[in-house]
């Protein structure tokens, strides 16, 4: 895994100043601490720093083709590079390294931008075509690896992390109000957005061409949901998906360094760990998180899996004070406000992985999204069923089965039903599945200052989202719609970034997610929803697949979403709120209303338990204030340990 950064002159006059490229790479050194390289010619500069995983000895980047007319910098892994390399050698290409990076360049020579269709991996790369004087940038299908860009002084600038762009001399550092509104609605920013003005993210499954004519962005892949009903024989489907998962794991074990596993005690990570242990690595090392707060801890199930498989397991015990102690550092890496504290334990877990001498871990990420595991899918199914007879008193009782911890006091059933009845009259609403969640979260905007509200004017993120939906979205079944929204918003922009790439790469650790192999996604997209969510039995197919490899207690356990304490984790250190939520700090950022924030703090301090909204308000406001402090107000990185590039290709004339 690596960091990439670059600068292209859009005027043809050549990069005006490249002295800051070293700084851009230095700020992302955690992503690639092993070696670094630079390519520069009259128009472009490409820089890369590398975490060596495949071809440790000769894979230093930038990498070029046979006649040195193509140059590439690459962050990620191409898991099917063996097969592609074989194909390209047969086509007559000559390789000078054994890296997966070089495969991309020769595949591009062979197939142009269509090369993207053949890549099975997690990647972001930039390739300079010297003959065409054109830059080609692409990002993997679901957005496992990041890529940000900006236009500044007639130059196109890009990098793996935002902080590198913010470090460019003269680049304005400002919060984007609409992006802030999105975080406080959807739990994260929407496609292409970042929390900063003028900095954009290349969306997953897209490529970008930049040259003297400007920049153009196009899609090369999309989630293949459709209204088409595809019949799958159940047993055959189970076998086909099992084989694909097996192969997805196998090709993700390709590395010249040892590979470990994350093991939470849930079905997805247990299934993946089981496949690796039983088929590929009998001396497997696994890593898991434990919590001081019992409500969040899965230690019992985790231990059961450890005993069952006999893996060499290391667990990290998270105290409430660990959350407060590392939230500022974590936000330096997420570069985005959060409504959760869950990235912090994952950041600390990757530190343990790094300290244990591992660079790569397999995880169960994506299982819930692709196979239908989330409660929001069940909630949508029940609300759909209820919407056919909105006066029914029986139908909504299914929700009590779904959320037993909310419905534990029978006295409240009536009022809870009113809460879940919101929007029931309009099941055709494209956002039917998520409307309760988003409306509920939007209540957090009551904390916005007058200035923030004035800047937002009448902005509504749902309008932006609506415009971006696929043309035939309305014709999809209820589950496909909910999955699409969950995958394109929460998975891509939060789970794979704040809880994924950023939490792991902060400690130079690469996560690999077999369930997000595009072959599995493509097969599962148009499977009958009853084979995903069977009645209210989630991940029906996946449970069949893991029936013999995971204990029944884990297969049958209720879904336990991975979360971390918020109020208990933040208020344990009063200094955090005193610093960032003071009248002075809130006035300086101008983003939130001090009076309301004070009332929130009074309430949180008064009652022992905090409600969902109050918890989200606390971390949402605090994390935004920290982002403001670290990236807008006090952005002064330390460059004292900056290293020179290990290799430089200077082609300037």
């Amino acid at each position: 895994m690596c960091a990439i950064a670059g600068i292209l002159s859009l005027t043809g006059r050549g990069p005006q100043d490249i002295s800051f490229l070293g700084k851009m790479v230095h700020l992302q050194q955690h992503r690639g601490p092993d070696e670094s390289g630079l390519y520069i010619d009259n128009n472009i500069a490409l820089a890369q720093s590398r975490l060596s995983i495949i071809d440790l000895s000769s894979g230093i980047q930038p990498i070029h083709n046979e006649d040195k007319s193509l140059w590439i910098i690459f962050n990620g892994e191409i898991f099917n590079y063996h097969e592609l390399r074989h194909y390209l050698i047969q086509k007559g290409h000559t390789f000078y390294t054994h890296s997966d990076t070089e495969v991309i360049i020769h595949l591009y020579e062979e197939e142009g931008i269509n090369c993207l269709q053949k890549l099975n991996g997690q990647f972001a790369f930039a390739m300079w075509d010297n003959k065409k004087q054109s830059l080609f940038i692409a990002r993997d299908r679901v957005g496992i690896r990041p890529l940000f860009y900006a236009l500044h002084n007639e130059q196109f600038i890009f990098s793996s992390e935002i902080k590198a762009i913010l470090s460019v001399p003269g680049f304005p550092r400002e919060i984007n109000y609409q992006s802030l509104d999105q975080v406080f609605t959807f739990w994260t920013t929407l496609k292409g957005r970042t929390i900063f003005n003028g900095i954009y993210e290349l969306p997953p499954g897209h490529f970008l061409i930049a040259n003297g004519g400007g920049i153009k962005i196009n899609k090369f892949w999309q989630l293949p949901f459709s209204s088409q009903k595809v019949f799958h024989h159940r047993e055959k489907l189970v076998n086909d998906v099992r084989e694909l998962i097996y192969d997805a794991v196998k090709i993700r074990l390709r590395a010249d360094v040892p590979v470990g596993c994350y093991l939470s005690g849930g079905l997805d990570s247990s299934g993946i760990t089981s496949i690796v242990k039983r088929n590929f690595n009998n001396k497997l090392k696994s890593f898991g998180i434990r919590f001081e707060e019992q409500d969040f801890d899965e230690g019992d199930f985790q231990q059961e899996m450890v005993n069952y498989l006999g893996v060499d397991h290391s667990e990290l015990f998270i105290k409430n004070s660990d959350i407060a102690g590392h939230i500022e550092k974590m936000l330096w890496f997420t570069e985005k406000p959060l409504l959760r504290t869950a990235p912090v334990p994952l950041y600390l877990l990757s530190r343990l992985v790094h300290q244990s001498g591992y660079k790569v871990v397999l995880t169960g990420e994506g299982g819930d999204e692709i196979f239908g595991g989330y409660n929001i899918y069940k909630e949508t199914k029940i609300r759909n069923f209820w919407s056919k007879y909105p006066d029914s008193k029986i139908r909504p009782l299914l929700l009590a089965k779904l959320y037993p911890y909310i419905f534990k006091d029978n006295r409240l059933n009536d009022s809870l039903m009113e809460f879940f009845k919101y929007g029931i009259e309009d099941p055709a609403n494209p956002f039917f599945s998520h409307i309760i969640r988003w409306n509920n979260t939007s209540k957090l905007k009551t904390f916005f200052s007058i200035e923030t509200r004035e800047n937002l004017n009448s902005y509504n993120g749902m309008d932006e989202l609506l415009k971006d939906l696929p043309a035939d979205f309305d014709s999809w079944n209820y589950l496909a719609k909910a999955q699409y929204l969950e995958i394109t918003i929460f998975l891509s922009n939060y789970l794979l970034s704040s809880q994924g790439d950023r939490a792991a790469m902060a400690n130079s650790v690469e996560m690999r997610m077999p369930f997000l192999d595009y072959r599995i996604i493509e097969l599962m997209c148009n499977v009958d929803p009853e084979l995903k969510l069977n009645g209210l039995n989630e991940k029906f197919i996946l449970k069949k697949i893991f029936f013999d490899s995971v204990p029944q207690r884990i297969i049958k356990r209720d879904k336990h979403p991975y979360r971390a304490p918020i109020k208990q984790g933040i208020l344990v250190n009063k200094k955090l709120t005193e610093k960032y939520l003071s009248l002075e700090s809130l006035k300086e950022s101008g983003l939130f209303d001090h009076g309301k924030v004070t009332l929130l703090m009074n309430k949180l301090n008064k009652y022992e338990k905090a409600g969902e909204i109050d918890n989200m308000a606390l971390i949402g406001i605090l994390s935004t204030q920290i982002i403001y402090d670290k990236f807008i107000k006090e952005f002064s990185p330390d460059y004292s340990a900056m290293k020179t590039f290990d290799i430089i290709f200077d082609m300037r004339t």
Partner: protein
Amino acid sequence: MNDHKELVKNFIVENFLFGEERKLNDDTDFFSSGIIDSTGIVELVGFIESSLPVKVNDHELIVKNFSSLSNITAYLKLKLNSQSN
């Protein structure tokens, strides 16, 4: 009875609206307007039981009694009257 209404209103404005009083009138529906969510009702009933000499019985904890300031006031009036008789 107006005292009770003010008491409940102040609690809701301070704890659920964080000072934004203008969002609340006597007939605003707490649930459909999203002012109070699933955990909020627990806080509201807990506040009433701790601030007033009232014990809310199971069969009384229905939307009709707690969905607005007017409804809560009417419920409390009946409840307190019946207790004093």
